[in-house]
Each structure stands twice: as C-alpha cells, then as structure tokens.
C-alpha cells in the first residue's frame, strides 16, 4: 500500500501531457532500474524468507526449495536470545542519547548562528571533525578513562563508567553532536535575522531567543536529525562492543554478535534474529522516510 501511494504521487502533481507513450529507451531504463531494485531488495527478502522456514525442512530439501513454512524461528529467537530485554537496553541508550545530542548540539549551533564571532569557525570545525574521526583511534585512552571513572551504585551496578548505560549514552552524544551542530547551525543561519532584532526589542533574553524563537522554527531540521540519530545510535556497534561487558546489558545491535554461538548452526534462526533487529529501523524507514532522507542530505547540501 505504501509503495502504491508513493508511486502515484509524482503522477498526481504532473499534468496529463507528461504521460507520453513509452519510448523504447524508457522501457530499457525501467527494465534496468527494475532489475537493480529487485537485486537490491533481494538480500532482505531472502532473510525474511529464510526466517519463515523450519530448519528441519531446509536441512533436507536445501534452501532452494519451497515449503516448511513456520513462525517458530521468531518464537525461539525471541525467547532464547532475550530480544525483549536487549531491545529495551537499546531504548535506554538511544532515547536519552538522541535527546541530549539534539539539545546540546542546538545550543552550540544557536550560538554559532546567532553571533558572528571569529571563534565560531574554530568551534564549528572542532565539533564537525569530531564526528568524522575513526572511533578506534580513541579507544585506548577512552577505555582507560571509562574504567577509572566511578559511578554510584544506583546509577550502574558496575560502579564504573565502563559497562554502564551512562557511559554509552555519553560517548554517543560526544560523537554525534558534531554532525548535528553542523546541520543545525546551517539551518539556523538561514533564519531571518530580523527575528532576533524583534526579540531583543521585546527584551527577550538569549535563552528565550533560543528556546522560544529559534527552536520552534527548527522543528523540521530537528525532526530529520532525530530520525537519523535514532537509526544511527540504535545501529551503533563498536562502542557497545568494547565498552560493555555484561551480556545482559548489551543493546540489541551488538547483542547479535554475542549470540552467534547459539545460532551458529542454524541459519534460519540467524535470519529470524536479524529481521527482529532490523524491524525498528525498517519501521522508522517506512514511516519517516522523508525525515530520514532529509536528514542525510541536509548534512551534505545546505538544506
């Protein structure tokens, strides 16, 4: 249904004369693009297909066969891998990290866009570049810092930043801030300056200018970034792999790897697990496709 509404859209805004008879070149183009699109969707389609078949059936008949349909792989994967728990862990990390990233990044972006100080460019560079550094290059000192910083027990049972949700939230915020500062400062610079002049005449403080003038106007950019960041932080694999130890606390993306031993012999179970992990991002993708695409392209071109 989704694709139907999507494909109808362009035709709807174009007037009738566009619908010229298909030229041969167009047919070739559609065949080519259709083949590519099917090829691109195939691995995902195959994963879904495999996940819906019983291991016993495919073990006998091979994977290039038809039959053995079952939903048991999902039940088994959900129960044995405790997906519910790991998904919840992902929520604990992703939601605060995204909110904090957007809040802190919008603060910096506001100052950069609102004032034209010489240092702004240094600030912007410092934030943007931080997002592009290879994570592994920071691992050694960070690992040490995380194992040294104590947390009270009520915050983490590890009593350290290492192996705690707090640590992961913090490192994700530090890494993702740069991209958001970059996008938001560009967006804010495009807002009319008269707004601030009017606000200043009204005697609005800097905080009110930020919170009541700029932020409401940035809703489209914030929505796009929120969509993108939810996907990125949910998909984050490296930090959780190296800065977590307790199996129960892993977010779902990195928990997949720890569970590989259990799944190793059963590809059908692997695919059910993969589909389960993919579902949240696919939901985001289909519901908020526009936001997602806009977020990505806002970073590359000037909104």
């Amino acid at each position, binding site marked *: 249904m989704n*694709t139907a509404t999507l494909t109808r859209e362009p035709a709807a805004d174009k007037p009738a004369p566009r619908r010229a008879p298909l030229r041969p070149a167009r047919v070739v183009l*559609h065949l080519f693009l259709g083949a590519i699109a099917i090829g691109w969707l195939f691995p995902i389609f195959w994963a879904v297909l495999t996940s819906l078949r019983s291991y016993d059936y495919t073990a006998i008949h091979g*994977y290039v066969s038809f039959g053995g349909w079952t939903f048991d792989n999902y039940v088994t994967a959900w129960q044995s891998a405790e997906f519910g728990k790991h998904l919840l862990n992902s929520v604990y990390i992703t939601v605060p990290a995204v909110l904090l990233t957007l809040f802190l990044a919008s603060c910096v972006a506001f100052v950069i866009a609102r004032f034209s100080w010489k240092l702004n460019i240094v600030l912007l560079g410092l934030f943007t570049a931080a997002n592009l550094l290879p994570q*592994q290059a920071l691992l050694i000192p960070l690992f040490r810092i995380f194992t040294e910083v104590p947390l009270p027990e009520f915050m983490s049972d590890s009593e350290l930043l290492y192996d705690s949700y707090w640590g992961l939230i913090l490192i994700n915020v530090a890494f993702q801030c740069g991209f958001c500062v970059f996008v938001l400062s560009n967006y804010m610079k495009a807002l009319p300056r008269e707004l601030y002049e009017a606000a200043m005449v009204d005697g609005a403080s800097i905080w009110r200018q930020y919170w009541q003038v700029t932020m409401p106007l940035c809703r489209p950019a914030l929505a796009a970034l929120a969509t993108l960041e939810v996907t990125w932080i949910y998909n984050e694999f490296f930090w959780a792999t190296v800065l977590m130890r307790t199996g129960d606390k892993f977010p779902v993306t990195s928990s997949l*790897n720890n569970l590989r031993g259990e799944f190793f012999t059963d590809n059908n179970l692997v695919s059910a697990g993969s589909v389960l992990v993919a579902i949240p991002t696919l939901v985001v993708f289909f519901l908020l496709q526009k936001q997602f695409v806009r977020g990505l392209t806002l970073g590359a071109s000037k909104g």
Partner: protein
Amino acid sequence: MSDLPLIQADRAVPSRAATTTFTGGGRRRRLRLLSRTDRVVITLMVLVPLLIVVGLVWLPALATVALSGTSWDGIGPLSEIEWVGGRNYSDVIHNYPPFVPAIQNNLLWLAALFVVATPLGMFLAVLLDKEIRGSRFYQTALYLPVVLSLALIGFVWQLIYSRDQGLLNAVLGTSTDWYGDPDVNIWAVLVAAGWRHVGYIMLLYLAGLKGVDPSLREAASVDGATETSTFFRVVFPVMRPINIIVLVVTVIESLRAFDLVWVINKGRNGLELISALVTSNVVGEASRIGFGSALATIMLAISLIFITAYLAVVMREDRR
C-alpha cells in the same frame, strides 16, 4: 581554556556589522552589551557540549598520539609509562605480519567503494533524477540497506555466503566458504559493503542534482550538447561541493570500516583492517597499548588529512 577567548569575543559583539548574507546589509546596530545573565547562558551553552566533545573525543585522540611513543601495558599506574620513541612504529611496519594485509585491505576497500560503488550510486542518481514513473519505488529499494547497521548486514549476507546453508553455493553448486576462505572473503565482504554504500551515494547525489540550476542544462541542450556531455561538462563540475563530500564520505567509510569484519571473524584470516587490528590489540588477549596506539595514530593521521579537506570545503561554502 577555550571559554576565555569566548568571553572576550563577547565584548566584540556590538561592533559586529551585520555582514551575514541574510540581512539587508548595511544596517547599523546600536551598541548593546549583553546582560550578565545572557553571557553566563551563552558560555554554558557552548561550554557544556564543548567539554563533552573535547574530553571524550579530542583529548583521547591526543592521548593516543602521546601513548604511541611509549610502552605501557594499559593496566599499571600512569607513572610506569616509559618513553620509547618511534619503536612502536618500526615494530608496526617491520614486525607485525597483519599490518601489510590490513593496509592492503583498507586500500582495496577504498578502491572498491570509489571505483565501483560510488560511480554506480552516481549513475543511478542521474537515472532517477529524470522524471520517470516509479522513481520513488526504485529509490526506496536502493537506500533501504542504508538504514541497516553494518553488523546486521554481515548477518544478512551470511545467509547468502554460508558454506553449507548459503544460497550462493546452492545456486552455483560450489562449496566455497565465502566468509572463511582468505582468498575470497574480502571480495564477498566488499559486495555487502558496496550494497549499502551505493544507496547512500545515490541519495547524496540525488540531492545534489536537485540543486543544479535547470537553466544550465537547458542552455547546454540549446547549444546541442548531448545528455552525456552535458552531465560531464556542465552538471558534474557544478556539483563540486557534493563531489568532495562524497569523496570524503567514501574515504572515511573505508577507513572506519569495522563492524562488518568484526562480526564475521574479528578481522582475521584475510579480513584484516587497521580498525580491527587496533581493537584486537586493546581488548584482545595481549593488550599492547603503545603498539595499538601507534596503529591508531596512523589511522588518525590519514583521516585528519581528509577531514581537513572536508572542513575546508564546507566552511568555504559557509562563507559564501
């Protein structure tokens, strides 16, 4: 340290002319000092995020560079750190067998993305930029993999590559272990990585193409230029900022490639990558901090070259 110049800059505010492009231009501002509260608020708004980013990204990066000149087991107190100069670097180059394959694989990764996946993404963007029916469907199919994590992509492709249960062997009638055989696994992984990269690049170029002034194309076609030559002579040069961003994205992605090989076999046996070597040296059985840091510093240095180029481009765009 960085808050000090900020407060000084604070006083410079009133003298700031409204040079930004959005205002009408030469409007004179009356001198108006920010109130004390405003100054505190501004300082906090910048300082808190700055402390997080400097403390968790930049200081560790500097510490990595410093540690690369030392021998340290990573466990003992900091006072045990011993300066060894460039020994770690010469060890990396001369006494570390996985280093050369890792460099080769990283370069191969870059070449594959740059020579195959990036042009394909660009080509598809050009095709999809035309007004064709179902364009949205094709786009959706192509960038669907972009929302999946690379770790997950490793698992999804395992269903195709697995030796005993994979689709590829079943169809071809072979018994290759696509992920395990060191002769072929890097290529198998590159297909999976490229699968995701194409959609990403297509998206970036599609946005870039939408931003190209249509009158340029009209002018070219009036002059009798073919579609191909219009693209290469007119459209492509105009998209220079996007081209550079795509170049940097490609380089950084190939340098940071990690998740995919780590979920397959932790970057061994044909799948060595610098990022995986750094990680193995730190969290692996033998934690060789100085040595790992030397590897990490090499990575950092390469990435900084491209990050600087990237910043130069986007900042110049900014001033326009």
